[in-house]
């Protein structure tokens, strides 16, 4: 991606490799909030995030002489942090399960939670978007979060999540496609419900309207009235 690498980050990284503690401080102060925020997407146990951040920076300090220089330090930190946090989470789950002596197959990856801001001027679409967002699979949410919140490129996301660039593109593509479809569909139905639908303006086929109606009924648990008014649409 045409994103310029951070020269100051690279300078500080070289200092870190020579054993300069202030360089570690530099990276900590610059990125701890980003990392903490990312961690909160995976767990509500802030203590666990603290521990993972602590591990991450101590480990970097201990291994500083053997570290290569990453293109973007922030994504290198996110990736390493993610690995540490996942290990901690899986240890915890395993332990809880062994205590209950259940033979569950434990999910390899934790769920991903991030909330969208609802733009005030478009509460309606914003709410729909939020609802649609919540229905995305964890990986799609995470990839979109990394792309639009941390500003990582597809290359960077691939590195952080440990998947190929192609798979990253697909994940983002699918996520956005789903958001778009659900937002448009619910928007149309809202307009329908308000009786202000104008067909000419909407790029929807008959089939799409039919499937939109199904989805709408599912989402809002509304039963069509007996006079068949929905069908007339």
């Amino acid at each position, binding site marked *: 991606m045409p994103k310029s690498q951070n020269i100051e980050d690279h300078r500080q990284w070289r200092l870190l490799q020579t054993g300069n503690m202030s360089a570690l401080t530099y990276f900590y102060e610059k990125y701890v909030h980003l990392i903490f*925020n990312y961690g909160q997407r995976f767990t509500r146990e*802030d203590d666990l995030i*603290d521990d993972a951040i602590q591990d991450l*920076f*101590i480990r970097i300090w*201990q291994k500083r002489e053997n570290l290569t220089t990453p293109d973007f330090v922030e994504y290198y930190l996110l990736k390493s942090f993610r690995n540490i946090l996942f290990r901690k989470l899986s240890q915890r789950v395993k332990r809880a399960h062994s205590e209950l002596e259940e033979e569950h197959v434990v999910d390899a990856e934790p769920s991903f939670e991030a909330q969208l801001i609802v733009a005030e001027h478009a509460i309606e679409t914003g709410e729909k*978007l939020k609802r649609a967002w919540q229905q995305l699979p964890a990986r799609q949410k995470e990839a979109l979060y990394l792309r639009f919140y941390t500003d990582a490129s*597809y290359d960077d996301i691939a590195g952080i999540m440990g998947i190929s660039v192609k798979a990253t593109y697909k994940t983002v593509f699918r996520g956005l496609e789903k958001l778009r479809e659900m*937002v448009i569909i619910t928007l149309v139905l809202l307009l329908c419900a308000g009786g202000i639908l104008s067909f000419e303006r909407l790029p929807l086929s008959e089939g799409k309207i039919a499937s939109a109606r199904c989805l709408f009924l599912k989402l809002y648990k509304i039963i069509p009235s007996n006079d068949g008014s929905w069908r007339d649409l």
Partner: protein
Amino acid sequence: MKNDHSIGTYAGYGLNDFLADEDFQEWVKKDLPQDSEFWQKFIQTYPHKEKEVREAHQLLSKLKFVETPPDHTRYQRIWENIQAGAEAAGTVTPETVVRRMSPVKMWISVAASVIILFSLGMWWLNSRTLTLQTGSAEVQEFVLADQSTVTLNANSSLDYRKSFNRTAKREVWLEGEAYFNVRHFAEGAAEAPRRFIVHTRELDLEVLGTTFNVKTRRSATSVMLAHGSVLVRFRNKSHDTVLLKPGEMLEFTPGQPPVLHKAVDSLHISAWKQKRFVFSNTPLDQAIQQVEDFYNCTITVKDPSLLHYRITAAVTAPPAQELETALSEILNVKVSRKGDVFEIVSVQQ
């Protein structure tokens, strides 16, 4: 970079393609003038794509995430632990420099000594020791002057000086077992964090803001870290300082090398806080020790081969009045009383 040539590459794009295109996303996110120019030119060249470009732009511009504000106190606390860890990781030990003293410096140091002696006297006045204590089958939580909390297990005691919260480092002395939740900062103060040191017979534990369990019974001492970091120093310098990571437990018996357990179950180890005995495949002799420490009693076995039995159980500790029943309930054994000594006659199958 994008140029007029690459306009053509977008000619076949549909709405989803625009959405997932990195350059398109960059335009929406950053709204740089050269990007706007490029996409305007694109729309002029391919007017029938305008609607899709607009729609994609609209959706992407709504993808904004709720952000939690930074918690600087928290970040400061984590940083202190990182620093402690980085230092313990054996970095640079400052070289000691020996210099000759000039006469002026000599007088200054004499004056300093006088001041030090005076302060020592003051310190002595402040150094009266206070003790927190628990009896048999008693578990109690205490709040210290710095708002740190200490839960004492049965038959344990914690000593500290009256000046505990006014000195540069907070120090306590432990006998028995305790679970600490140490406050990083003194209550309401914006002052620098002060070290908190737990002294046991064999070990000195240095912490900042941290949660951990310390047990010093008989000759063995063990430290289990739940959160944060703990620096373990060996009193007689027999071993190198160890930095514990969360989830780790260090066990030390004098004369033997320390043992580091990598991933222990912190809830299991601190189960005593709820007055619960949790055994998982625990040898009977170890279980007996835990019970003896809790009730302050002596337990023997009739047949030494019984000690090979292993117990798996989670039992809430019964009150100490009916000790005989309590013991047989916890350990699942038959007990007979001989004076002050309880003897395990047999193990119930």
